């Protein structure tokens, strides 16, 4: 039951046209090594579901730069100028989802809930085409679960079984993303023995995690992940 594979093997599981679910809030909690590996693997026509597209030329921004993306689904792309330009040039489709709806739809995808109702976005442009329904006199819209072929998450630590521990607010969307992909790959800085992460500290239990990859490209310096050979 060894879940540890090489970054290259992990990238090989991503196919042209796949929908990738990717954890992270900006660059924090983003599986940077895995993303770089996918950039090198040259797959294309990908749909990425993630809160942002990393930053310009960093993290998921690299997949955009290399034109491997067909579509981005998330809550905030405005600050990535390349995303804005690619969208304007019709090189990139964008589907905007309120941040909380994005998180809940990913959770629903992992939890066997095909759809749920929310007040968020009722009456706005983002509710267009979505079914509206009242409960106890208030209006809600129906939101569908989000699932994908491959989930990529980043944890600071895993045990060999695949239990994950996230560091502070680098947790963000990772626990939800880890439940909603057919194949779930976790990039981690460190792998320890089972039992070393105590039962109450495990954020993502191992039944969600198919493969572990050790982050081999980035080190944390001065509170930031920087490229090892940069």
């Amino acid at each position: 039951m060894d879940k540890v594979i090489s970054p290259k093997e992990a990238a090989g599981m991503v196919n042209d046209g796949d929908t990738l679910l990717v954890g992270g809030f900006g660059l924090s909690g983003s599986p940077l090594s895995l993303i770089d590996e996918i950039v090198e693997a040259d797959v294309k026509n990908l749909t990425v579901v993630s809160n942002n597209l990393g930053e310009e030329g960093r993290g998921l921004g690299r997949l955009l730069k290399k034109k491997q993306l067909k579509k981005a689904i998330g809550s905030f792309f405005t600050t990535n100028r390349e995303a804005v330009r690619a969208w304007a040039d019709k090189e990139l489709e964008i589907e905007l989802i309120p941040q909380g709806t994005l998180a809940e739809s990913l959770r629903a995808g992992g939890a066997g809930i095909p759809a749920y109702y929310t007040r968020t976005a009722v009456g706005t442009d983002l509710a267009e085409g979505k079914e509206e329904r009242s409960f106890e006199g208030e209006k809600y819209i129906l939101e569908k679960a989000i699932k994908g072929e491959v989930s990529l998450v980043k944890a600071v630590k895993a045990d060999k079984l695949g239990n994950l521990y996230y560091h502070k607010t680098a947790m963000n969307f990772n626990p939800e993303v880890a439940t909603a992909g057919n194949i779930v790959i976790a990039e981690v800085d460190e792998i320890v023995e089972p039992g070393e992460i105590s039962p109450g500290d495990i954020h993502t239990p191992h039944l969600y995690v198919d493969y572990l990859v050790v982050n081999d490209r980035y080190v944390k310096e001065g509170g930031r992940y920087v490229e090892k050979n940069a």
Partner: protein
Amino acid sequence: MSKKMLKEERVQIAKRVAEEFETGDIINLGVGIPTMIPDFLGGKEVYLHSENGLLGIGPTPPEEEIDMDLISASKQPITMSPGASLFSSSDSFAMIRGSHVDAAVLGALQVDETGRLANWAVPGKSILGVGGAMDLVAGAKKIILSLTHQSKDGTPKLVAELTYPNSGLRKADMVVTEKGVFRFIDETMYLVEIDENITVEELRKITDAHFEVSSDLKTMNQ
């Protein structure tokens, strides 16, 4: 208008919003002016909720203690105050959507005279970012809008009717600008406080929205 004056206006707004809170309140602060509010809370112990997964934002860390995996929703480095807790995005937005956050202080591009607001998109421009704005508008117990009274070119932001895409059906409870404080009662906008350097008549000239003047009108920040 000089940069200094703009800074003063923003301080004026942040200071006034800070007065709204009581010890124990759970508050979510949007980007921009709202991020200045913690400096004006005085002794009041409030708890700052960050939608990326933290309750209990502490002071900004010194450079040597910055950890970019401990950040606010504006992606700024933060610390944790005693009693802070960490959680995932879905848990964080369950707090917001479920109305467990006492107040959201948000910027706005426009607010209409009934309290409806627009704070995420400009017509004709690409609509590529919404973040947590709509979740907060729909879910926070109280919506406080903090914004400068007019845009840089003098266009009123308090309007009769929104021309920008709205952020939800939910209406604001309160609007704070550098010129005055407005509250909404039964979808009517009331001026409750006014800056000492402006008259009600002058204020009407730079305000497109119709507002009533409270019988108990006070001077702002005094």
